[in-house]
């Protein structure tokens, strides 16, 4: 309850007129960002606690969230290690064919499987230079692994597996080559 209240309080402050319109002084803007980030951390803690109740008691792992996906960066997916991916649909309706983009680093082969261990088609697309050069982006990702999740139920969680291999597998993600129309 206290963790949730932190976000409630932050949202209360953000409803102040200068936060809504962006007319606050710069140092206030920085403080608003800090306040929101801190509240979001508390909410992530709640999600982690919820998972711990659902999962076997022996499991102690924590979830990593991807707050830098808006600049095509995610330290967790860029490590070149296999991962389980959870997708939570906060909507009240089904999501069909939702496209997921994960930043990854070059030099490995990637494949995606669903929770029934069925292979899911996936492709690799380069991250454009103008995104890679965004100031402050500290990322080794030069490509995005793109795949579709067929269905995510309302308020439901879908699990996908991202496998990272050193050698190419039959169902490894295909790399899409750029085509210059003028050529």
């Amino acid at each position, binding site marked *: 309850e206290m963790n949730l209240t932190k976000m409630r309080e932050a949202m209360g402050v953000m409803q102040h007129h200068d936060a809504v319109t962006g007319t606050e002084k710069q140092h206030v803007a920085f403080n608003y960002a800090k306040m929101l980030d801190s509240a979001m951390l508390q909410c992530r803690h709640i999600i982690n606690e919820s998972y711990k109740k659902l999962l076997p008691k022996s499991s102690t792992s924590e979830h990593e969230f991807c707050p830098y996906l808006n600049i095509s960066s995610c330290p967790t997916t860029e490590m070149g290690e296999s991962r389980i991916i959870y997708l*939570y649909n906060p909507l009240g309706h089904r999501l069909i064919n939702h496209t997921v983009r994960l930043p990854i680093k070059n030099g490995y082969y990637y494949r995606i499987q669903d929770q029934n261990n069925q292979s899911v088609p996936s492709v690799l697309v380069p991250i454009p230079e103008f995104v890679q050069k965004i100031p402050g982006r500290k990322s080794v990702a030069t490509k995005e692994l*793109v795949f579709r999740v067929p269905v995510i139920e309302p308020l439901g969680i879908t699990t996908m597996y991202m496998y990272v291999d050193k050698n190419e597998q039959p169902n490894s993600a295909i790399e899409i080559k750029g085509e210059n129309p003028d050529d």
Partner: protein
Amino acid sequence: NDDKSKWQVLTKNLIVEFYSNGTISRIFIDKLHQSISISNEFRLYHGAGGTGRHSGAYIFRPNEQKTFPVTNKIKSTFFIDRKYHIVQEVHQQFDSSFVGQIIRMDKYNDNVEFDFVVGPIPVNDQIGKEIVVRYKTDLENDETFYTDANGRQMLRRRWNYRPSWKYNVQEPISGNYYPVNSRIAIRDEKQSLQMTIMTDRSQGGSLSPEQINGSIDIMIHRRLLHDDYFGVGEALNEPGVDGHGLVIRGKHLLLLNSIKQSASEHRPLAQQMFMEPIISFTSIESNKQA
């Protein structure tokens, strides 16, 4: 496409046509057998400075009542996944190094996504600048457009007009800008077509002053060098992480449909945009997870 100078990319019900330089040229609506010409460009206003009221955090006030092109030259690369059709996108790098864009189309959806990166806005010439993205079509919208009211009903806006008093226009550009919280639209009643642009955050929008029929302008980034004397006491000049100015990345979704069908398309899509699935990773072993 038979015309080798053009590329066509298919979505669920749309065919999006590009010129050979990678700029968007036309959208065909397959099920309605209709099409519109369309262009998409980045333009800028020079913010008012000097001795009068400045453009700033509280007010948008251009120095001249016209826009300037951000750039003309463009380098485009198509990425088309011909096997699984997961990815169909065009990467556009403009010759000015501070603007780049990816246009994405999806076989299972009927929207065209414009994912742009803008900044840091150069101000070496000591002129503040306000960047707009323009979607220009041949739709006849009778100088009228629609903006949402905090995601609720769509409000009708008319160029140089207020419904409850006689409007004497002092500021032709800023007097016609309205808040866009989630979407802005124009309608062509004769063709029964509506183009809706969904925004990923609150922005300002209007018709284009250079073509008040068929166009939508949305302001996506601003960098100004003077305080506007409305109380904040400083210029709207965010330093960004490296102190050289803020870089923004955002996206617009363009929808084109019959007027009748539009609301059923843009309303669920707005919720979907604002509540995108959250991705998280875990190190739990897969057998335990199962």
